[in-house]
């Protein structure tokens, strides 16, 4: 028996969320008293694979089939389910990101396993296997029972701390017989900015709303973000108007994020916007309207004009030489 964890890589590298997930796997496995098997699909160097052991993987299986270079939901699911069966995995873990959301539901059907998605802490494995997650886009929490022999779980990003381990994990290659003809989705072109800090990975986010008044006023948002090593975000009307790219739209219908700090400038704090940021550890609001709902959700607030407050904040940050 085992806990199987699917560790995604980005151009051959793992990210913090991969290590969060393996740390989580380590704790789930401890509860069930079974080992952690990590599965990596794609070209990842041995040094990088070894890092999974530093967070608790006991065994690492690496698949480098040339037809699995880009994500094909159907064939990735097939490989993961083969490995799950071979390792007799009782729990299979994914991150609750684009790839995890693409694969976990398919695997759940393939293995007839209950799915617990977007979890925010460890499952309870006493008499019942129960998991804890947000529902109604952050307006409530549910404790859900999973009633099947095998369980598939996805873990929300930034909701579990890293736990190191001194495991000396073994690395094995896993061969599959996937052929070119098995792949039904063909990636014909890729358009990707490399090196840019992603909104979902950022620990600090500076976000602007309609109160910024015009796309020409985004200079201070970008400058502050740059100084703080933060990503930039925006409210939905801002991206709908084309002031900012859609990738920056946060909220119920955009990105759901969990940074340590979220600075909301000229954002009213509509319930649909808050749905995307309710997991932020600290929320700062800058708004001219003292009755704006954002102040009910914020930890710190300034009732004032963004066009005056942001430049002041920028010079203070510069002086402090963060």
């Amino acid at each position: 028996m085992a806990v199987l964890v699917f560790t995604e890589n980005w151009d051959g590298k793992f990210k913090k969320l991969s290590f969060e997930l393996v740390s989580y796997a380590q704790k789930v496995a401890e509860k069930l008293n079974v080992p952690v098997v990590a599965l990596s699909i794609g070209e990842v160097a041995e040094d990088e694979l070894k890092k999974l052991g530093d967070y608790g993987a006991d065994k690492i299986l690496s698949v480098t089939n040339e037809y699995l270079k880009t994500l094909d939901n159907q064939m990735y699911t097939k490989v993961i389910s083969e490995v799950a069966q071979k390792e007799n995995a009782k729990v299979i873990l994914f991150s609750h990101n684009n790839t995890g959301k693409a694969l976990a539901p398919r695997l759940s059907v393939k293995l007839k396993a209950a799915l617990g998605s977007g979890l925010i802490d460890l499952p309870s494995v006493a008499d019942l296997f129960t998991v804890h997650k947000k529902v109604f886009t952050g307006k409530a929490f549910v404790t859900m029972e999973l009633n099947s022999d095998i369980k598939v779980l996805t873990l929300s990003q930034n909701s579990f701390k890293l736990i190191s381990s001194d495991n000396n994990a073994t690395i094995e290659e896993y061969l599959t017989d996937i052929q070119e003809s098995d792949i039904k989705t063909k990636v014909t072109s890729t358009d990707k900015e490399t090196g840019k800090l992603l909104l979902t990975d950022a620990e600090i986010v500076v976000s602007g709303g309609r109160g910024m008044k015009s796309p020409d006023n985004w200079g201070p948002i970008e400058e502050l973000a740059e100084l703080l090593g933060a990503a930039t975000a925006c409210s939905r009307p801002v991206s709908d108007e084309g002031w900012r790219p859609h990738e920056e739209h946060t909220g119920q219908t955009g990105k759901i994020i969990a940074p340590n700090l979220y600075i909301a400038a000229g954002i009213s704090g509509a319930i649909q916007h808050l749905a995307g940021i309710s997991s932020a550890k600290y929320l700062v609001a800058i708004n001219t309207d003292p009755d704006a709902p954002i102040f009910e959700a914020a930890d710190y607030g300034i009732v004032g004009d963004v066009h005056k407050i942001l430049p002041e904040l920028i010079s203070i940050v510069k002086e402090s030489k963060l």
Partner: protein
Amino acid sequence: MRVFVCLGNVPDTTTKVKFTENNSVFDNTGVQWVINPWDELALTRAMELKEDSGSSVEKVTVITVGTKSAEPTIRKALAIGADDAIRINAEPTDAYDVAAKLAGVLKNEDIGFVMCGIESCDYNGSAVGGMLSEFLNLPSVSSVSGIEVKGEKVSVSRTIDGGKEIISIDTPFVAIVQKGISIEPRIPAMRGIMMARKKPLNVVEVPDTEVLTSHKSFELPQPKPPCKIVNPENVKELFDLLQNEAKVL
């Protein structure tokens, strides 16, 4: 080709949520029901493709698992422009059960492609679309932020971290869609509302399927401590709080 759009019937996004029966059941008294926002965007894109003479999409069908109470939401989708609707007559329980029921009906249909929203804004499972594709044993693409149909050829764009990929795919398949597929959802016009009354809404029964999860209890978040208001003449104080109290800088 015929496009199927899966519709979720969900509480309006501004609903104040409450629970009954010892916090084990969502209290739906007074709740306003709407089309799940992503499904509405999917339907909007399906209508655009049907209207585009260069695409072979000729029929758009909406499909829902729900009781009679879901019919106003289905009629709204017909008013937006769907040609017909299928209601699988059952109380929707968990994602596995809903996907199995959808598959039970769709496996007998001639599918161009099926569109599902990335998530429902009630239980936020991000699950039905992926599960449905596996039940149907069809290819799926998720994080889809665009679909183009030129004659019979279909390509989709998939959002990836830091960009996007263009994928060519043969029909039939399942697309799990998010923002970008369309931007503003269509709203029904008076003419659409009149026509919707006469459009077919087929109610079908399917055999019982399995439910693998159950909700034990719900809780509301703890109330937050009140916001600390900083004097706008003293922005430095905000900086100090972030640095020394919150320790996030």
